[in-house]
C-alpha cells in the first residue's frame, strides 16, 4: 500500500538524485576527515564492503561468512572476512540549519511508523526463531522483512543523530539512503546459537547500551555544532557512524538476521577478521 501511495521514490532514484543535487561546496567535504569513511571504502582494503552491494559480491560475502567449506577453500586463512551487516556512509557533512533545528520533531512520523512496524516484528522474530531452530536458517521472506525494519531504524537513527544529512524514507530499501546498511542474505546458523540467542546477546546488548549513550551524546553535541556552523564535525560524525554500526549489528544479531556476533571495534574502516565457525 505504501508503495502504491508512493511514499518512497523508485528504487535507486534517491541515490542518483542525491549525487546530482549535492551542492557545489560539498567537494571539500570529500577531502575532509569525515569523508574518510567514504573515501576509505573506495581503497583496496574496502573494496569488499563497497562491492558487497553488487549481487555477485553479496553472494561472495555470504559464502565466506556462512559456508565453512568455502572458507576452508580460501588459499589464505588470514584474509579478513566482512561482517554480514555493514554500514556504508556516502554523505557529506553539510547540515541545513532549518532541518537541524527541528530534527527530533521531524523523525516523529518515522518513530510512530517504526512503533507500528515493531508490532509485526515481534511475532516475525518468534517465527524466525522457531524456523531457525527447526531448519537452521531464517526463511527468506522473514529475513527480508526483518532486514527492512533494521535498515529503516538505522536510517532514522542516522538522521536523528546527524550522521545522515537527508530525510530518510519509510520502507528501508537497500540503497535508498546515503547512510545505508547492507545485510547479507539469509545463511545457515547454528541451532544451539539460535536457541540461546538472547542469552548470548546479553554482553552485546550491554555494550550496545554504552554505545547508545555515546550516540546520544554525539547527537546532542552534533546538533549544537551543526545549528551554529551548518556542518557536522567530522570526528563526531565518525564516532556516530561507529556507534550506529554497532547498534545495527547488535539488532541484526538479536533479530536473527545473522549468526555473527557484533563487531565491537570502534573502527569503521577495518574489515572484521575471519572467524571460523
Amino acid at each position, binding site marked *: 500500500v505504501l508503495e502504491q*501511495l508512493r511514499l*518512497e521514490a523508485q528504487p535507486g532514484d534517491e541515490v542518483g*538524485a*542525491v549525487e546530482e543535487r549535492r551542492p557545489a561546496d560539498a567537494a571539500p567535504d570529500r577531502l575532509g576527515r569525515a569523508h574518510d569513511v567514504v573515501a576509505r571504502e573506495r581503497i583496496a582494503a574496502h573494496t569488499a564492503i563497497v562491492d558487497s552491494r553488487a549481487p555477485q559480491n553479496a553472494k561472495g560475502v555470504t559464502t565466506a561468512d556462512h559456508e565453512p567449506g568455502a572458507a576452508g577453500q580460501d588459499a589464505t586463512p588470514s584474509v579478513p572476512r566482512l561482517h554480514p551487516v555493514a554500514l556504508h556512509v556516502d554523505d557529506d557533512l553539510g547540515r541545513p540549519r532549518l532541518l537541524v533545528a527541528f530534527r527530533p520533531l*521531524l523523525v516523529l*512520523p518515522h518513530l510512530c511508523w517504526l512503533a507500528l512496524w515493531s508490532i509485526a516484528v515481534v511475532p516475525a522474530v518468534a517465527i524466525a526463531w522457531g524456523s531457525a531452530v527447526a531448519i537452521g536458517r531464517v526463511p527468506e521472506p522473514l529475513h527480508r522483512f526483518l532486514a527492512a525494519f533494521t535498515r529503516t531504524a538505522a536510517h532514522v537513527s542516522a538522521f536523528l543523530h546527524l550522521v545522515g544529512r537527508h*530525510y530518510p524514507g519509510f520502507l528501508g530499501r537497500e540503497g535508498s*539512503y546515503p547512510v545505508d546498511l547492507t545485510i547479507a542474505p539469509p545463511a545457515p546458523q547454528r541451532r544451539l546459537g539460535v536457541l540461546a540467542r538472547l542469552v548470548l546477546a546479553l554482553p552485546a546488548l550491554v555494550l550496545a547500551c554504552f554505545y547508545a549513550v555515546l550516540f546520544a551524546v554525539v547527537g546532542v553535541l552534533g546538533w549544537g555544532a551543526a545549528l551554529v556552523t551548518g556542518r557536522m564535525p567530522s570526528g563526531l560524525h565518525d564516532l556516530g557512524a561507529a556507534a550506529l554500526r554497532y547498534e545495527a549489528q547488535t539488532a541484526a544479531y538479536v533479530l536473527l538476521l545473522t549468526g555473527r556476533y557484533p563487531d565491537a571495534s570502534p573502527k569503521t574502516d577495518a574489515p572484521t577478521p575471519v572467524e571460523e565457525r
Partner: protein
Amino acid sequence: MTTGARAGRAALVAVLAVAWVAAAWLLYRSTVPDDLALPHVDVDAVFGAAAVARAERYERFLDINWALGELAVLIALAVFALRGARLVRESAAGPVGTGMLLGMVGLGLVWLVRLPFALTSLWWQRRHGLSEVGYLAAVFGGWLELAGTFLAIAAVLAVVMALARRLGSWWWLPGSVVLAAIATALVFVQPYLATLEPVHDQRVEQAFRTFERAQGVAGIPLRVERVSDRTSLANAYAFGLGPSRRVVLWDTLLDGRFTNAEIDVVLAHELGHQSSDHIPRALGWLTLFLVPGALVVMLVTRRRGGMGQPQSVPLALLAVVVLGVVTAPAANLVSRRMEAEADWKALETTRDPAAARGLFRRFGTTSLADPSPPAWAGLLFGTHPTLADRVAMADAWQSRHPS
C-alpha cells in the same frame, strides 16, 4: 475540455453550492429569539470607567502584537513558498515523505517566527498579573503540543498527497471529507487524553446535575482542570463527542472570587454548548469551510504540479494561513452565534440575569477583557460576544421575564 464536460462540471459545482448553502442555513439556526433586541449598555457605568480604560489598553496591545505576529508569519511563509521547494533535495523519502518533511519544516518556521511575539504577549500578561508562566517554560514547555502538531500536519499531508497522486485535481472533494473525519476523531479522543480531576464540591456537582435535567441531557461528566499554577484567568469549556463529552471548569473559577450563582451561570452556559450540539455543529462548519478551502488550495498549487508534488507543499501552507486570516471573520461570526445561544440557554436554565451580569462584570476585571472592543478587533478576534453584549442579553432576557 468538451462542452459536455464543462456543463457537467458546472452542474456539479452548482449542486455543491446549493448543498453548501442549505447545510450552512441548518447549522446557523439558533434558539436565541430572532426578534431579540439587545438594549444599549453604558460600559463605563456597568464596568467602571477605570476598569474599561485598563482593559482597553491591555487588549489593544495584545491585538497589535498578534497582528504583527501574523504579518511576520505571512512574510516567512511567502519566503518559504518561494524558496522552500529546494529542500526537496534534502530528502530521500519519496514524494509523500518529502511533502511531509516540507510541511513539518514550514510548521517549525511558523513556530519560530511566532515565538518572539508569544514571549511579548507573555511579558504583557505577566506585567498585568494574569500569567505566572516562566519564559523558559513558554519556550520549552510546549514541546509535547508541538510534537502533536508536527504529527498532525504530517498525517494530513500524507492523506492529501496520497489522494492527490491518485485522484489528480479532484482530491479536494474526498480530501476535505477525510480531513473532517480526522478532525472528528481527534475531537472524540481529546477528552480521554486530557489530565482532569473530578469536582470535589458537592454543591457544584448537584447544581450541574439539576441543569442537565433542565436542558434535557444526562451523564456528562463535570471535571476540573488545574491551571492556577500558570494563570489567574478564570475559564471553562465543553468538549468531546457522544460518550467522550465533558464540561471542564478551571480551578481558578472555584477559588472564591466568583459567587455560587455566577458559577451556576458558567455551568449552565457550558451545558448549553453540549445540549445544543455545538461541537458536532462546529465540526459541520469545519467541513463546510474545508470544502472550498481545499478547492482553493488545489487551484493555487496547480501551477507547481498539484498537491501530489512535494514542491507544492510550501505554497499550500501559505494558502492555508491566508485562508485562515481571510475566513476568520466568518468563523468568528459562527462562534459568536453559538456562544450567544449558550448564554441564552444559561439564562433560561438559571433564570438569574443578575448573576449573569455579575459574572460578566467580574470577567472584565479578572480577565481584563475589553467590554466593548472596536469593530475590527471584534471581526478578527471576537470568538465570543462582547461583555457589553452579554450584559445586554441578560437585560433583554429580564425584560421578557419581568417577574
